[in-house]
């Protein structure tokens, strides 16, 4: 895989260009990572300056991280609502646009309308969930990003930003919790 060294960080937490270094360390398992995170927090690294990557979903609490707010449920609700309305339009409005009687039924019957509305609501829910979550995750994004392939081999990657002055201190903390591959994160095109 090709590396493209670049100074720009897209994990930027607002610190101005060049005024900060980003470090990445790999851990073998969760507990040490959690301890390392605690130590770093204690050392005054802001939570949003740290990112943990793992090949396995660790519950946030496991790493002592806060849960972040999601727009997803609202996107889904909005989607469902629009699906509902579209269903209504098709099953209730269109029969009146060109009136044709069938089998002595009323132009709009409850059961068919119910089915159509229901199905379209569900369809919209599903689709909006998918698009919603992609949107939340900024996917797709194929640009270069700091990452390490060992993540999918079971390591946890802790990446953080700090001012150059504190780099040594941070490295020590990481080593203290026997992290390996400590250093400038590889930026690889994903």
């Amino acid at each position, binding site marked *: 895989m090709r590396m493209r060294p670049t100074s720009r960080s897209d994990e930027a937490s607002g610190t101005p260009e060049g005024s900060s270094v980003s470090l990445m360390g790999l851990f073998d398992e969760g507990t040490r990572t959690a301890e390392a995170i605690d130590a770093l927090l204690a050392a005054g690294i802001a939570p949003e300056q740290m990112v943990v990557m793992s090949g396995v979903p660790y519950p946030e609490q496991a790493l002592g991280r806060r849960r972040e707010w999601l727009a997803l449920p609202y996107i889904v609700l909005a989607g469902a609502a629009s699906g509902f309305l579209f269903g209504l339009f098709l099953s209730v409005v269109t029969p009146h646009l060109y009136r044709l009687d069938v089998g002595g039924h009323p132009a709009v019957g409850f059961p068919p309308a119910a089915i159509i509305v229901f*199905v379209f609501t569900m369809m919209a829910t*599903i689709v909006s969930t998918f698009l919603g979550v992609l949107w939340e995750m900024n996917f*797709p994004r194929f640009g270069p990003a700091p990452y390490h392939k060992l993540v999918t081999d079971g390591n946890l990657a802790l990446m953080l930003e700090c001012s150059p002055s504190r780099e040594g201190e941070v490295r020590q903390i990481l080593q203290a919790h026997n992290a390996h591959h400590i250093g400038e994160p590889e930026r690889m095109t994903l």
Partner: protein
Amino acid sequence: MSETLPTAEAQYDERVLLAKRKDSEINQAVLQPMMQTGRGFWGLVAALSAIVAWGVFAWGYLIYWGIGVTGKNRPVYWTLFITTFVFWIGISHAGTMISAVLRLLKADWRRPITRGAEAMTAFALMMAGLYPLIHLGRVWKFYWMIPYPNNRFMWPNFQSPLMWDLVAISTYLIGSTLYLYLALIPDMAMARDHTDGLRYRLYRMLALGWRGTEAEWHKLHRALGIFSVAIIPIFLSVHSIVSWDFAVTVQPRWHSTIFAPYFVVGAIYSGLAALATILVIVRRGMRLQEFLRSEHFDSLGKIVMVAGMFWTYFWFAGFLVEWYGNEPVIRELIRQEVSGRLAPLFYLQMTANLVPIVLLAFRRIRTTPAALLGATLLVNVGMYTERLLIVIGSLQRNDIPFNWGTYRTTWVEVSIVAMTFAGFVLLYTLFSRVVPYVPVWEIKEGRLRYTMRRIGRLLVPTAAEIE
């Protein structure tokens, strides 16, 4: 595949083994079979493609000459196409059953088989989706069923069950495909990290740039949660709607209120059975013994058995009322089934559907792949026959004996049906070579939540209830 699964102790060892494995080893264990596509594999692909090609030719032939080249006639207007359509829809129900329902129930044994199940759903639906087109007299006008503004001021008739079909099936197809894909992303990233060349580019595209940050995991979990809730009513509605295709007519035997639940249960029965069949084969074909273990087949077998019991219950509930009501035409139909020209099909249906229930009651059979394969195959033979009886059998009789009919199939129909079966297997085979067949991250997650605890002289897995 006549090997029986190891004894209890050995299984624990296996589990311990898996527990002891490093993640990288698991990755390799899963990726390895994907990478190697031997002569046998390509031979299979070639054969299947040939069948599909022939089926496509048959379809072209059908379109050019007209529906007459099938065995349909008056009054048997629907035959093998609709039968197979119902069959595939049925098959498609296992995927959501497994992954969605069991995910909600936090049934942990689901983990290694979810992806196989979801893939089955998606592909079965694709095959099913072909039939509404194939059976049209003027397929080139199918777009009139799609609601779009047009200069004729005309919209489709949403009172028609076929319209319900159209939207419900497309919803289910979209839903299950997205569901499959969403849960696939992390494994795509994994595959991306362990491949290069063409596959790398493919996986890179599919991984969408996944890195496994906490935020990504968190969102993925939420999305999957919503999906598994949302897709269950859909999968219930789809087969109900399919059943209403029949139930809304005044055709004797079709005009029944129990059809919807009866079809749904039948669908789950055949779907789960088909899943078990496929798992046994894939396990052997891709050497996934380590991941697909006796515990999985055991539990799967149990559900199949239960579904079978439900099917029997619903079948009997319907049959009883039909028999008791003693409506002349229905009486005639029952006569045809019990002692008439439909008798062979009828008895085949009953044996092929009931015997497996008994077989699956034995753990030994559930955990012996060969036996399980046999039992579950039998189930699907039975369920296909059931659909034959419902669609073709019923249509041969109606209220005016003068108008009764018979049906003889033709090479065109058979070829097209074969096409979808071959197409399904083909898609599934290719899929298994492109995508990690067992959801690696889910297994790892499971592993993460397990610890082996020693009780007396037994190693017992204990799960951590964290969310």
